[in-house]
């Protein structure tokens, strides 16, 4: 048998070597492009609402602005919108101002840390700017920003790539899963209605829906969206890290080399999301998955403070942190 093997291994080895050589040459030319200069970001952090203040959104925004500036983004000081400056009109105006800066190859990013809400009837999700809350008993919902609003504002900018990052409650309502199904329920957690399922079980359970999506002539979402939480989940300030629980780990993704899964010094939005999600699961969710908080939902059910970040579907990804 060994004699037979050696007799026949010659041409196979030669064939293998030849094909491997072709394979390597094919990829040798795949050099990474130089860092583009035209990447523009707006960061928004609202802690000091007229009522229901939060603790760390301003810290989130300031640290995110610093990180983005050091990883390839231009963040003008006028594009850091904090507290009372971050009204609906100011946010809209700042986004519209991208138009005069960008080119067709540009990327834009909006980061938001603040309150979020969702309507109980049609599940419309909202970002709540500073002027969206007037008093403990008064809201101005005309100032609230829906997914349709911000999609319209961002899509009006003639650029190549758009990223939206939301650290706010119920922000999963901004996430378009496109041709995919989210394996995690809208309210993640063992006490909240389920945990993440595997791809095979999802594929079998939702085969017809996924097949229809797979063969549809779909397009990627025009905005790559990352949310701190699912559509039915609050997100939280983290007293230990003095940031939003999600944002803290998203910031860490910019400097922790383990976030850069392929080691090319480019941390994509998906890589940063995956890092933050996994860290949140192992550092936050484990602490709160079985202990209800002191608050209850509108039906009187206890709320568990575990939550899961989400990301939009589609084939595309965008480099978030350029660490070259």
């Amino acid at each position, binding site marked *: 048998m060994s004699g*037979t093997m050696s007799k026949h291994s010659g041409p*196979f080895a030669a064939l293998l070597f030849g*094909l491997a050589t072709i394979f390597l040459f094919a990829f040798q030319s795949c050099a990474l492009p130089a860092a583009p200069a035209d990447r523009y970001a707006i960061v928004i952090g609202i802690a000091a609402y007229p009522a229901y203040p939060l603790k760390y959104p301003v810290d989130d925004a300031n640290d995110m602005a610093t990180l983005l500036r050091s990883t390839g983004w231009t963040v003008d000081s006028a594009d850091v919108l904090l507290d009372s400056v971050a009204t609906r009109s100011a946010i809209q105006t700042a986004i519209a101002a991208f138009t005069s800066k960008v080119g067709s190859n540009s990327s834009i990013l909006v980061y938001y840390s603040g309150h979020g809400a969702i309507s109980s009837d049609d599940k419309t999700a909202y970002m709540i700017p500073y002027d969206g809350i007037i008093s403990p008993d008064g809201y101005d919902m005309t100032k609230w920003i829906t997914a349709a609003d911000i999609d319209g504002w961002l899509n009006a900018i003639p650029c190549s790539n758009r990223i939206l990052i939301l650290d706010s409650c119920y922000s999963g309502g901004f996430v378009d899963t496109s041709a995919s199904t989210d394996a995690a329920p809208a309210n993640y957690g063992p006490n909240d209605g389920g945990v993440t399922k595997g791809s095979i079980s999802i594929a079998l359970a939702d085969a017809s829906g996924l097949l229809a999506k797979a063969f549809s002539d779909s397009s*990627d979402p025009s905005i790559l969206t990352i949310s701190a939480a699912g559509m039915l989940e609050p997100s939280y300030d983290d007293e230990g890290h003095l940031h939003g629980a999600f944002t803290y780990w998203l910031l860490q993704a910019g400097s922790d080399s383990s976030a850069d899964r392929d080691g090319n010094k480019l941390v994509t939005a998906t890589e940063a999301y995956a890092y933050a999600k996994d860290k949140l699961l192992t550092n936050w969710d484990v602490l709160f998955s079985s202990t209800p908080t002191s608050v209850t939902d509108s039906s009187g059910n206890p709320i568990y403070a575990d939550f899961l970040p*989400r990301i939009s579907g589609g084939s595309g990804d965008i480099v978030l942190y350029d660490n070259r």
Partner: protein
Amino acid sequence: MTTIQRQSGLWTLLLVLATGIAAAPLGSQELGIRPLAGATQAAAQDPSLWSFSLEAAGFGGTTGMAGRPCLTRAAYSISANFALGNEAWTYFALGLDGFALGESIPDPSLFLYRAYGGNSIYLETGPRFGLGGLGLRLFAKSRVEILGGAGIAATEDTGTTLVSLVPFLRFDARLHSPISSNWSWSVGLPAELQKHAAATTFIAGLSLAIVWTPQKETKK
């Protein structure tokens, strides 16, 4: 016939692939062309053989979609295949595999295609050709298998909780060489055309498999 015998091995191989017949081996005293060992005529008398194989493959390829550039990426797969056929045809080859596509390289705007992976099932069919007629000792007991088919994969975008189904077309050319009466190994050139969300990916690569055929093949 004399002319055919003067052809190079490559031309003879092309003739084999094109017609399913082979020239008589060099040095043969026979004249004219005869059916390839294991071709249709012989196959009709042969019992069907089933085989089981384990395969590892590496791929390179490109992904593109409307409004975005085509960008290169790499992939790998580990698969188990069950095949039923005779010496002239693979009736069907059923494959189950685990695979992963790495993220693509980025374009100048730092857009790229997301990594994903999962498990797939595919079905292929196609002809088999013995290479005994080539007159090359090294390939005397080798066999070429040309397969085409389709499959579906349940995938997860790497690092996310996003699940999708990915339909794909698959083409595979394999060269089998026996190790013993029940074992052989094969080197292949698999290629796939996948549709993941709005993007289409073409990958082609190199596979290596160990094949177990429990029945003893009839000697020709």
